């Protein structure tokens, strides 16, 4: 298991993404999967940075665990209770000008993971994301 903990600030985004890339590479996942992981991680982290810390600073911890043929990524933070899965999905059928601005990130998170789970654990939020190579990656 690999863990990285950084301040909950947008400036930490790049380092977390590099960390995830390395995890995907070490595991031997495809480029397509690694790309999905980076995107999902960015969307999850941006939501956490934007919504979980209205009152000040904190930390976010990303960890990477073997999960059979795939990986489990856990994102923990010590912000306020914030469940990203409770954000509404965008209305993809609506007119362009009304298309959901805030929900797109969570929509990607759902579509691009094999599984996704949130729970509140005492003083921390915990988001677990499962990734594995997809057969239709061509």
């Amino acid at each position: 298991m690999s863990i990285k903990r950084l301040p909950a600030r947008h400036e930490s985004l790049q380092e977390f993404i590099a960390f995830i890339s390395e995890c995907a590479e070490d595991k031997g996942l495809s480029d397509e999967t690694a790309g999905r992981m980076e995107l999902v991680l960015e969307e999850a982290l941006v939501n956490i940075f934007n919504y979980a810390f209205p009152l000040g600073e904190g930390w976010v911890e990303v960890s990477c665990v073997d999960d059979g043929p795939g990986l489990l990524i856990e994102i923990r933070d010590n912000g306020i209770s914030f469940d990203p899965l409770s954000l509404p999905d965008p209305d993809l059928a609506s007119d362009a000008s009304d298309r959901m601005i805030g929900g797109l990130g969570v929509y990607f998170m759902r579509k691009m993971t094999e599984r996704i789970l949130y729970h509140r654990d005492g003083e921390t939020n915990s988001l677990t994301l499962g990734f594995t190579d997809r057969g239709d990656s061509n």
Partner: protein
Amino acid sequence: MDINMRKEGDFTVFSISGRLDAMTSPDLEKQIGEWMEKGGTMLAMDMAGLDYISSAGLRIILAAAKKLRPKDGKIFLAGLKKPVMEVFKISGFDAIIPIFDTVEAAREKI
């Protein structure tokens, strides 16, 4: 993320390379805004060099399309790499923003 600008007939072409994410999107937003302020209405985004786009980038592009509409302006995208195209497909944005293989192909159509 790098942006190079050039004029091609009626269009301004923004060639974008690198990554369009939460950190780099504000820069593109700023450049599009400045271009619009100078009266630009026809925008082609050449993405042949773009490796990655997140919802932050999609939002900037959508916002530009919305602002151009009342001015009878147009925005289109060209040369999308596979991972970037995937994001457009999953979000359904490929149905809203015209996407072409090349800038030339788009100009022939439009």
